[in-house]
């Protein structure tokens, strides 16, 4: 269910890539932000604005060069790799821009992947994955190889994979970049249902369908690694 206090606290986060090398690049410049639980937040901005980097850091996929990140009161920016993995596993679900489904495997196998390290019995995991397929209207595509799925189906498989461990926070990077308007609206419909189910949705996008969606309660505008401004909805 929702986490009413500040679910994510971002404090003066800076991220430098290729530090002390000729191609050093600062993707984030001291970003600070508080995000509440059970909300839909969108980071918007042009390519290179730092929104993907910020999503990665929030989700524990990358560490900030400076600054601190708190998730549900726990500081994750100083956790070692193993504990960070544990936080990522139980707290976050990720939908990548390129979807990153593993080719050669079926849709069902892809969805079950995040569940294997939890130690859950394979039979239970499979049941849960099939339930997700039914919820997302993918019931007949479970055994299909992912390379044979349409764009919309692959997107929903990626959503199912993100949800298999029942995370409280769903992170999606440019989720509608490869979808047409209809599929983009369908995607936002699914996000709305998930939010109603208590999930916190964090998206990075510059798609007007995403940014203008009625479920978005907060739009954070970014440019050159800085937060330019925010629009807070109802």
């Amino acid at each position, binding site marked *: 269910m929702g986490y009413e206090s500040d679910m994510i606290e971002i404090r003066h986060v800076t991220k430098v890539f290729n530090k002390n090398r000729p191609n050093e690049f600062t993707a984030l410049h001291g970003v600070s932000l508080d995000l509440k639980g059970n909300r839909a937040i969108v980071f918007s901005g042009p390519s290179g604005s730092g929104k993907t*980097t910020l999503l990665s850091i929030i989700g524990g*996929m*990358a*560490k900030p060069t400076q600054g601190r990140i708190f998730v549900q009161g726990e500081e994750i920016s100083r956790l070692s790799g193993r504990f960070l*993995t544990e936080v990522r596993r139980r707290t976050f679900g990720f939908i990548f821009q*390129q979807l990153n489904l593993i080719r050669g495997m079926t849709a069902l196998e892809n969805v079950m992947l995040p569940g294997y390290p939890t130690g859950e019995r394979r039979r239970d995991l499979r049941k849960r994955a099939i339930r997700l397929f039914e919820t997302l209207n993918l019931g007949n595509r479970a055994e299909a190889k992912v390379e044979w799925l349409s764009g919309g189906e692959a997107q929903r498989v990626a959503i199912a994979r993100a949800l298999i461990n029942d995370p409280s926070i769903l992170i999606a990077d440019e989720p509608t970049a490869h979808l047409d308007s209809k599929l983009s609206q369908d995607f936002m419909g699914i996000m709305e249902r998930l939010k109603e189910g208590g999930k916190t949705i964090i998206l990075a996008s510059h798609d007007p369908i995403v940014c203008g969606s009625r479920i978005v309660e907060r739009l954070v505008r970014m440019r050159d690694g800085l937060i330019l401004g925010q629009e807070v909805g109802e």
Partner: protein
Amino acid sequence: MSDTDFRGLFGIPPTLFTDIVLTVRNPLETSVVSGKILRMLPDTRAVLKDDILRTYDAVFAWRGGVLLVIFSAAVFAFLICAWDKAGGLSHEERREIGVLRAVGWDTSEVIMLKVWEGIIISLSSFMLGIIFAYVHVFFFSSTIFEPVLKGWAVIYPSFRPVPAVNSSQIAAVFFLTVVPYTAATIIPSWLASTIDPDSVIRL
């Protein structure tokens, strides 16, 4: 059976010889002695040990060469596979590891997966190779290598290999193939799984 009994049994006169082996104390004198024998007994044929060795070389050396070429090709193919694995992961493999890390797999879990993957691939190839070799040799009388193995000296006896498994040879092949291949898969997987999943996915 003694020489006398044999001659008595087959009616061979004591002065008739078909094959005579002559040892010459000084090896440098063999061709001279051979020449003298031919002059004294023109209806005989003198064969020197060196001639026999040359004949065997001529008959068998190329067969050994064929086997060596086949074996070398197999070894090189294996080395290329192992080197390719040890040299680094492909873009697709790195992306897969990044995805696994991003969705909550720990470094040790990724490495275990890769170890098992390497073991399954190399062990199943090893087992298939052993089974194929056994079937080929003992069920089909080594059809491919038969001409090489038999040679001209054993044309008349039947060629039927007796089933036998040499465990030390199998162990040697196992440790020279399965173990190095599995080891070759671990290091690049470990290197890929220890970096931030974010940077792997951005590749």
